[in-house]
């Protein structure tokens, strides 16, 4: 893969270390001469000094048709301009733009950038899922928090334990996409019986997350 890493300081060094291999060709651009020298010295690679939002800099760096372009400048608009230039003029296949303001995630995507990452946003998401609900439940959010995948363990006292999925009247707003049982994965249909100690992978919208937990964790009054 041909990967372009534009600007950034510590993150740039980390990403370079991660992708440095025989298969990848790294093109590194940095607008700070002193940091470029430092990077070149530490990582043993050549670093082009220049602003990655300038046409002639990308031209000189030879980023035409690169596979990935990662923009790590401090200012969101600098990253925006770099990514748009790489995409429109240099035909880069995938542009990744890092932003500070979480509001820019959706906006930049609308304006044509493939992938927008906000560290504040990711931090907030992980704090939310770490502190969310019962600590037993691991969750993963996708598509900027439009979809949530939750891992929900089944206990023997739950009402749904030892029942077939078709018999439990599972809510329409969520779906059991997989069941993890004894180190194997079962893709369920209505005939599959849910057992105690199963882990259900449930997909739903974030607003329904709590409802579906409550549904699954209902206890069977008959059981002790």
């Amino acid at each position: 893969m041909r990967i372009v890493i534009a600007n950034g300081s510590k993150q740039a060094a980390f990403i370079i270390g991660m992708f440095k291999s025989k298969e990848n060709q790294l093109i590194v651009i940095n607008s700070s001469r002193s940091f470029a020298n430092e990077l070149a010295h530490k990582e043993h690679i050549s670093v082009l000094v220049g602003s990655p939002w300038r046409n002639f800099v990308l031209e000189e760096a030879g980023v035409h048709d690169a596979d990935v372009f990662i923009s790590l400048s401090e200012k969101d608009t600098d990253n925006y301009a770099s990514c748009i230039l790489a995409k429109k003029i240099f035909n880069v296949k995938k542009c990744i733009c890092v932003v500070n303001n979480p509001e820019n995630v959706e906006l930049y995507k609308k304006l044509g950038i493939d992938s927008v990452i906000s560290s504040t946003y990711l931090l907030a998401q992980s704090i939310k899922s770490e502190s969310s609900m019962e600590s037993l439940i691991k969750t993963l959010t996708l598509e900027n928090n439009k979809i949530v995948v939750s891992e929900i363990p089944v206990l023997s006292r739950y009402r749904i334990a030892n029942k077939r999925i078709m018999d439990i009247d599972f809510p329409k707003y969520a779906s059991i996409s997989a069941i993890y049982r004894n180190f194997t994965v079962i893709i369920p249909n209505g005939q599959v019986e849910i057992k105690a100690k199963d882990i259900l992978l449930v997909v739903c919208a974030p607003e329904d997350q709590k409802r579906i937990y409550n549904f699954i964790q209902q206890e069977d009054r008959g059981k002790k």
Partner: protein
Amino acid sequence: MAIKNKIVVIGCGRLGSSIADLASERGENVIVVDSISSSFERLDDNFSGYKVTGDATDVSLLEEDAYIETAREVAICTGDDNVNLFLAHVCATIYQVPEVYVRFDDPDKSALISGNPHIKAIYPFELSINKFAALEGEGK
């Protein structure tokens, strides 16, 4: 849909403040945005529009304070080409402002706005070089 009848000027430097003054003189409904409030001192004493202090790249400010959805015209003249490029794209594609005027120091930016008929760019560099050529021609 909101009626588009306002003129929004982003960046109150020498160019931005003059554009805002001209529009205000014509009796237009003008809103000027700049991140530094002292920039508004450049405006004429008779300027009758609104002044909004804040970062225009924050779209919530554009929407709530600068009423961008009601803009018929936007003039973007901050000192940062990348900010100007981003704002031009936002105003033209997200808020469908019919006329977007934007100033760029770097003439290479033209390739990035060429696809959108609503964005019209001003390049001081090109104007200067053309003027130079014209003046030099006169002398001969």
